[in-house]
């Protein structure tokens, strides 16, 4: 009996020789315990060393192997060939991003957006180390923990139809991280994030399609974070209009 095979239809883009992406079909041995990333690595090692893609950890932690698998944003290390076999698998670079080569996208726009939401703990004054840690109750930790699991894999940006038409949109992962730090009891920097969050390209561009939360491999639920940011921002706004002289913290 011949060895079972599986066919991968892989998007290729090799500038400056190619002006537009093309696709290349690879038929390789089928192994039910392989994930799509294993198949890509088999192609790279045994069939075509010129194929380019990002990967690192192989275990859903590093967030670098996100691609479109049959049109859906997935981490290729987390989808098995057996879920598609004997059908062909279409592998494309993450949607909504410029492509550098083959399956490698340019994420510099996201890195700029990430920076402006200041996703780190901001303190007015740092406590000296001799005074010990910043303690939190389990409840205080629960307030942000679920939103802190983001691995910056960008699947949420690839799935977001708003980001697809409005590239200035800050987007799900960056806004969710802004929310995560606003919720952290150790953080005192929420006022410094408001201008970005309250901007038209911040939370207000989100129309709650919710696809970001559907594709998130770490169950971060960015859609919920953004809706909560809308509530917080609307409350701030009402307070600033009704009590313009009051403290708007």
């Amino acid at each position, binding site marked *: 009996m011949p060895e079972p095979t599986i066919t991968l239809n892989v998007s290729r883009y090799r500038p400056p020789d190619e002006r537009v992406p093309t696709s290349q079909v690879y038929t390789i041995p089928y192994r039910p315990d392989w994930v799509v990333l294993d198949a890509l690595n088999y192609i790279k090692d045994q069939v075509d060393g010129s194929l380019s893609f990002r990967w690192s950890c192989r275990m859903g932690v590093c967030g670098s192997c996100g691609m479109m698998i049959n049109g859906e944003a997935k981490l290729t290390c987390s989808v098995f060939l057996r879920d598609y076999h004997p059908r062909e698998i279409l592998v494309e670079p993450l949607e909504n991003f410029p492509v550098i080569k083959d399956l490698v996208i340019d994420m510099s726009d996201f890195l700029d957006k990430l920076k402006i939401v200041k996703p780190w703990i901001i303190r007015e004054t740092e406590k000296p180390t001799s005074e010990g840690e910043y303690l939190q109750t389990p409840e205080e930790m629960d307030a942000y923990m679920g939103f802190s699991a983001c691995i910056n894999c960008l699947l949420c940006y690839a799935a977001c139809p708003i980001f697809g038409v409005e590239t200035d949109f800050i987007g799900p992962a960056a806004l969710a991280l802004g929310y995560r730090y606003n919720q952290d009891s150790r953080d005192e920097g929420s006022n410094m994030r*408001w201008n970005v969050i*309250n901007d038209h390209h911040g939370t207000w561009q989100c129309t709650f399609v919710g696809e970001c939360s559907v594709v998130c491999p770490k169950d971060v639920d960015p859609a919920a974070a953004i809706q909560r940011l809308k*509530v917080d921002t*609307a409350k701030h706004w*009402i307070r600033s209009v009704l009590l313009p002289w009051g403290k708007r913290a």
Partner: protein
Amino acid sequence: MMGEALPNKKSIEPLWWGLFSAGGVVAAFLVPIHIVLLGLAVPLGWISDAPDIFGHWFVKVYLFVFIAMPLYHWAHRFYFTLSDIGLKSFRKPISFLTYGGAMMGTVITAWILLRL
């Protein structure tokens, strides 16, 4: 400096979203009740109609919220739907028609209720 970047008071997007959100709650929770009451219960004779209650100020306030709020829900949703399907360059006239329409509806609702 801390506290430098407070919410931009010039942006009124929180207002439109707040009205959209309030309208969504009204549409989701109250409209189905009225569909059952006015669409089924009264015509099928389960309960009798009570036109006298419309003179009461509390009923008027209730009806005002019930009718006006979902208009803003529609306006906001429709505005974003139209700009997302590619009519971004017509944002100004679309916002005039949607949010303006909702405001017009609010005024007409208040006018009718005050005359009842």
